[in-house]
């Protein structure tokens, strides 16, 4: 495996297909961990519109994935983040990590989702059924979740 596979795209992704693609023909993977973030229908939400910074967003994700790759003995890693208009129930983000053993795969997966929430340039705007819209505000709890990985946890 050459390294992490990073994609920023409007199109949906399929967890089963991505898992199969990552593990196909491999006999060195003992554990595959995945996280899929979905669009919730909070407070009458009709859609989430995700904006990104083309160029910088891909670079930031590459940097975060490279850090996970260096920190854990991964044998595979796929990160897909969607942009554009997403309706409730739609998948937003996929993190897949593979390793010989479960601990590395699970920890690296948690690290990646915690870090990409605070370190990759994406912005969410909420559109509601009644026509209102608002930008999602960053959460202190997300900063805390990312920070715990910096303290050598």
């Amino acid at each position: 495996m050459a390294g992490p596979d990073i994609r920023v795209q409007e199109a949906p992704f399929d967890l089963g297909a991505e898992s199969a693609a990552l593990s196909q023909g491999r006999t060195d993977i003992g554990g595959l961990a995945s996280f899929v973030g979905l669009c919730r229908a909070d407070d009458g939400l009709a859609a989430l519109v995700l904006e990104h910074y083309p160029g910088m967003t891909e670079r930031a994700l590459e940097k975060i994935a490279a850090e996970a790759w260096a920190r854990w003995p991964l044998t595979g890693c796929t990160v897909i983040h969607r942009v554009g208009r997403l309706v409730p129930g739609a998948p937003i983000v996929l993190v897949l990590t593979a390793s010989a053993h479960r601990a590395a795969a699970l920890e690296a997966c948690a690290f990646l989702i915690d870090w990409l929430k605070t370190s990759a340039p994406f912005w969410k705007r909420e559109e509601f059924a009644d026509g209102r819209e608002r930008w999602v505000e960053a959460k202190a709890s997300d900063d805390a979740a990312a920070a715990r990985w910096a303290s050598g946890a």
Partner: protein
Amino acid sequence: MKLLYFAWVRQKVGLAEEEIGLPEDVRDVAGLVAFLATRSPGHAAAFADPRQIRAAVNQDFAKPDQAVAAGDEVAFFPPVTGG
């Protein structure tokens, strides 16, 4: 200098990007924010509270004291909310 705006910063400024001549007395990100706030009512609204603004210089996150130069690409946006 190329400036890019994202999310509500873009909406308030009313532009996704613009080219500006960098004033000689603007040396860092914080100075650029203070200068931009004087450009139009939209800019003033976007940059009214610098604590709500994050920046990137040449596509890397930048602190307020980071130096800026005429050829840089500088982006301004709210704290990120991906994932």
